[in-house]
């Protein structure tokens, strides 16, 4: 009989290179009666590993455990699992929303022609009537115009004064 396969598996077993399948094969092999002499030292280990799978607690544990549980009301458990069942859905929705919003922002930031990144969604117009709104905008622009001119004329005056000073110094 060819035991090369088993010897190979065994060698890899000690190196922790075997798969679960292969480890199962080893245990199966050593559980049979006919194990060659040179492999006999390893038999006990694999027989032990196999047998250990059968150990456990008895039936009486079940009844003791269930009686401990049944002290708590069962109704509560059902209601809570309903809510928690939706948690993964909420989580998924939140992630999707996040990506949608990011995409939206990215769109506005990168694809928008006019390179404006302002979010106007929350703007609540004060006026309904565009004519009234127009008046406000135009008067605001006039005020701006006024201030621009004021500052320009003072800076003009300043630079004139500076010139005059420098002329005097000369």
């Amino acid at each position: 009989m060819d035991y090369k396969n088993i010897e190979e598996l065994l060698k890899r077993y000690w190196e922790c290179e075997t798969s679960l399948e292969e480890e199962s094969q080893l245990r199966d092999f050593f559980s049979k009666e006919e194990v060659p002499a040179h492999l006999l030292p390893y038999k006990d280990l694999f027989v032990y590993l196999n047998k250990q799978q059968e150990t456990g607690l008895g039936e009486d544990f079940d009844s003791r455990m269930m009686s401990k549980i049944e002290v708590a009301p069962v109704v509560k458990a059902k209601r809570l699992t309903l809510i928690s069942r939706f948690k993964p859905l909420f989580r998924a929705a939140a992630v999707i929303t996040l990506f949608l919003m990011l995409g939206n922002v990215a769109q506005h930031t990168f694809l928008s022609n006019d390179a404006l990144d302002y979010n106007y969604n929350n703007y609540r117009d004060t006026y309904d009537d565009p004519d009234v709104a127009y008046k406000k905008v135009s008067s605001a622009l006039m005020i701006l115009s006024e201030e621009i001119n004021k500052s320009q004329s003072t800076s003009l005056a300043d630079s004139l004064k500076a010139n005059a000073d420098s002329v005097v110094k000369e």
Partner: protein
Amino acid sequence: MKSVLLALWMTLFSVVAFAQDFATRFMAEHQQDANLSCITISPTMMNKILKSDAAEKDEQMAEMISNLKSMQLLTSKTRVQRYYREALKVIDKNSDRFEPYLSFKGKLEECKMMVRRRKGTIIEMVMLTKNKHQFSVINLTGIMSDDFISQLAGALKQKHS
């Protein structure tokens, strides 16, 4: 995975948080304040204005308005000094966004204008004014080129001519 999501949320938050004009930021810090009044003109209303009868009558004004996306006006007749100072603080806090454009200090009033540029173009303009009676902020967003500024400067002269 969680840390990636967290980072994305923070990015979103920071981007969304900054996509506001000065007036919105300022008002956010004065939400319950009844002294400050705010007038908002949204992009939708700007479009309506351009189509309105009033705008038809003044071509030059209409042309200037066509550059604007929004306008917000803040005014207060009380606590003028305080609001002016606070507004300057907000500008300072966002000094990487706003650059000074011009300022004027007269006997009776003071004003400062700040702009926000993107790739050289002015996309936001903030003017803070205070005088004895009133504190006001004129906050525009839009595409305001140098042409627009000179048009704006010339607007008053035109009116008077």
